[in-house]
């Protein structure tokens, strides 16, 4: 479905997008941002699911389970960590508004 050259176009545009979107993030958000981008590559989960779904031998199945397990940890952990950090910024911002 995705041909070589099309894939390269996607790659190029996505690289520029990542660079541009991130270059405007203030320093104070760098840790949550790293955590947030860490969450986003948790999309590897869908790939691991597809890989495990096609497994037809025990070896491949075991590797597939490990892959899905790790990917789920990446996605969920990345989300929880990022949300917790960002909520603190909201709390701090509100306090600022009151004073």
């Amino acid at each position: 479905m995705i041909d070589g050259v099309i894939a390269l176009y996607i790659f190029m545009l996505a690289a520029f997008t990542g660079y541009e979107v991130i270059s405007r993030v203030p320093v104070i958000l760098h840790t949550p941002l790293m955590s947030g981008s860490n969450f986003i590559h948790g999309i590897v989960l869908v790939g691991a699911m597809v890989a495990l779904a096609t497994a037809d031998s025990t070896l491949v199945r075991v590797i597939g389970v490990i892959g899905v397990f790790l990917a789920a940890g990446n996605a969920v952990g990345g989300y929880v960590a990022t949300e917790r950090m960002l909520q603190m910024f909201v709390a701090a911002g509100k306090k600022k508004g009151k004073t």
Partner: protein
Amino acid sequence: MDYAHSAQELVQLSYLAAAFLFIVGLKRMSSPLTAVSGIRWAGVGMVLATIVTLLYVGLGDNPNVRLNVALIVGAIAAGGVLAWVSGKRVAMTDMPQMIALYNGMGGGAAAAIAAVELYGGTETSTTHLVIATVGGFIGSVSFSGSLIAFAKLQGLITKSVRFGGQKFLNLSVLLATVVLGFLVVSGAGGGSAAVSLFFVFALLLGIAMTLPIGGADMPVVISLYNALTGLAVGFEGFVLDNAAMIIAGTVVGAAGTLLTQLMAKAMNRSLGNVLFANFGESSGAAAGGVTGSQKAIEASDAGVMMAYSQKVIIVPGYGLAVAQAQHKVWELAQLLIDKGVMVRFAIHPVAGRMPGHMNVLLAEAGVPYELISDLDEINAEFETADVALIIGANDVVNPDARANKSSPIFGMPILNADKAKNVIVIKRGQGQGFSGIDNALFVLDQTRMLYGDAQAAVSQLIQAVKAAG
């Protein structure tokens, strides 16, 4: 046939939506006030893509589909619950190593996809084989490297392992991995021994690369591995024809690379220097020029000094994070503000173990943004400050970085705390900091040392300021 085709289209559309939501989410993270909604939008994208994928693979015609789908659901539940509980429980101060851990898991997952492709032997196109192998290589290095970074920050590994010929050994491991990678690609199916060895060596390389890197450089390393995991995910996305993985992986790869560069720049070092220079190895000898003695001060005297100041600049560092002292520090700052003292927080870009680490902690304590300044904003103000209060920070205020060419951190931009009229340093003991470098600031005439755990010391300061009327 039509049904399968439209299901395929639906999956692709959901991936498109997920990719869109990821980018919108990252964009919204560029402001503190919209950032929470940003991560939530990205989360919606993730849930959407996962559910649609699960339904799609559940409809497959593979005879093992029931078993495999059950395994998928079980593995998601196990990994998800573990990560959820650990992510909710971990203290804010330990966030950096948790990010390293979750990131390593993503790299491991990308490597596992590559392993499924390579062991399964179903992949016939050479391009796909090459890309799967490269992605597997990067993912494996990111996986084992991130685990080492986690172990170092968690205190499980306390020493940086360095020995003669280490670079040669690492280079040999790299070469062996590359050769095995060629064998895997050219062996086209038959060589599952080569595939196993390839992954073993790639994992070894991640460990060997990360072990010699000092703890102070871990932020840069975690950021680099974050970018690498993104790339690995992008590569495996090519192999699986999965546009969501290509886009999300590449966006993270590019973003992480930029972030890594910014961090290395903040330390005035190149990335190559961080990775290969064995930073801090010879610092004891090289920075031996620090002479003079540290002068202690009692908390009560320090409190009085601050209570009668016009302007106090607080410089937090990793010691604040370790002692969980952020709430106490804000309490102290509020007391001083009530007394009419002007209080500022000065944040070095690499203070703590990640960029912005201190900002997160101060935000947790509720410190308003306008009191927090970064290096460029605050440095001119130290000259007018009566007191610079250094809490568990070390290298980021070491004037040797400006003046002493033989210092390993020479050239790194620092906070000019030594320009303040008085400097109070809260520090656990007389030893060197995390990077093992002597600090010329601690022996200046205007510097007084307040020894102790940051939380206990700040509590004493609070009492002293209260007592000062």
